[in-house]
């Protein structure tokens, strides 16, 4: 067992007299523990007022995305032994989104941008008697893009998004790829007006923070580059 000094960002906008600050907790942990285990121990044994999101605790739901030791990741996947110094952990909320309390951020803006790219199948042709078929090769084209769990790690790690909050961000653009490159979809004409703008694909400056932050190892920048190529070559 090791003693871990955990610094946790605390903020409660409903109590403006309590300015945002860091609280420190000493937590006993196994080196194989995850950062989410530390947060549980703090909340259950030391300070029940700490607020954070979590649900599945197995890297599927994307609820526990936060900034840990300066980089976005899922708390449930952040293994202590993988940190350079597992005895010192700093936990902050995802940056650039408004804070509701402590590590809980308001994701309204994130999901509004997600809605803008129309993340659903658009096909005006009459449906066949059974399902719309897709070959394994056609499915392969969108395979990686379907791994996204909408944790917001990518969009909140993107400097272009910090600088320009109107930028759609990597998550929404990835979702746009997922449908625009789907062999069954015919909706690119409806999505293009938000993609081919200063706040669409062209705001991506290939910084690759999103790729580093993605807990599902999706190369988001590659998918955005495919959208750029599609727009430039007018293949739609």
């Amino acid at each position, binding site marked *: 067992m090791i003693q871990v000094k955990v610094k946790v960002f605390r903020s409660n906008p409903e109590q403006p007299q309590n300015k945002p600050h860091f609280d420190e907790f000493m937590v006993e942990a196994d080196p194989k523990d995850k950062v989410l285990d530390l947060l549980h121990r703090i909340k259950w044994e030391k300070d029940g007022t700490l607020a954070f999101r979590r649900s599945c605790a197995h890297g599927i739901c994307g609820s526990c995305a936060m900034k840990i030791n300066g*980089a976005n990741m899922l708390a449930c996947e952040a293994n202590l032994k993988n940190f350079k110094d597992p005895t010192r952990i700093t936990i902050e909320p995802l940056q650039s989104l408004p804070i509701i309390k402590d590590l809980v951020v308001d994701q309204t803006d994130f999901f509004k941008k997600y809605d803008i790219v129309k993340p659903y199948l658009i096909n005006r042709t009459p449906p066949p008697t059974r399902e719309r078929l897709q070959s394994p090769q056609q499915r392969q084209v969108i395979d990686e893009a379907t791994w996204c769990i909408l944790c917001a790690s990518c969009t909140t790690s993107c400097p272009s998004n*910090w600088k320009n909050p109107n930028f759609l961000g990597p998550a929404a653009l990835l979702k746009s790829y997922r449908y625009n490159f789907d062999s069954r979809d015919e909706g690119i004409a409806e999505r293009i007006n938000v993609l081919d703008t200063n706040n669409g694909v062209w705001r991506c400056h*290939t910084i690759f*923070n999103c790729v580093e932050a993605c807990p599902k190892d999706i190369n988001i*920048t*590659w998918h955005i*580059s495919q959208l*750029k*190529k599609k727009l430039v070559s007018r293949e739609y």
Partner: protein
Amino acid sequence: MRYVKHYGTWGYILHRLSGLALTGYILIHIYLVSGLHNRPAWQHEMEIFRNPFLMVLEWCLFSVVIYHSLNGARIFIIDYFNGARYQKQLLTAVLVLSFVFFAGMGAIMFL
């Protein structure tokens, strides 16, 4: 906002800084050259730039030009080919090539 800087982030920061440096340089360059209206004035200006300190600055300017150009090519490969899959290898290639050109230019200028 504090965030860990990854390899690709440094590539971006260097690209922006070199772009700003080149913009500053071009303004100074235009200002200095705009006042030279005859051959003696031009030759006098060139004499000044043979000063070893200014030659070292010129060498540094070359490093900025070469990094910005090569990284521009890297961004092109990322955006229009499959470069995003190999961005770290491409950035390493840009840095190594920049150093090779920088050293080569140093040899031409000072040896």
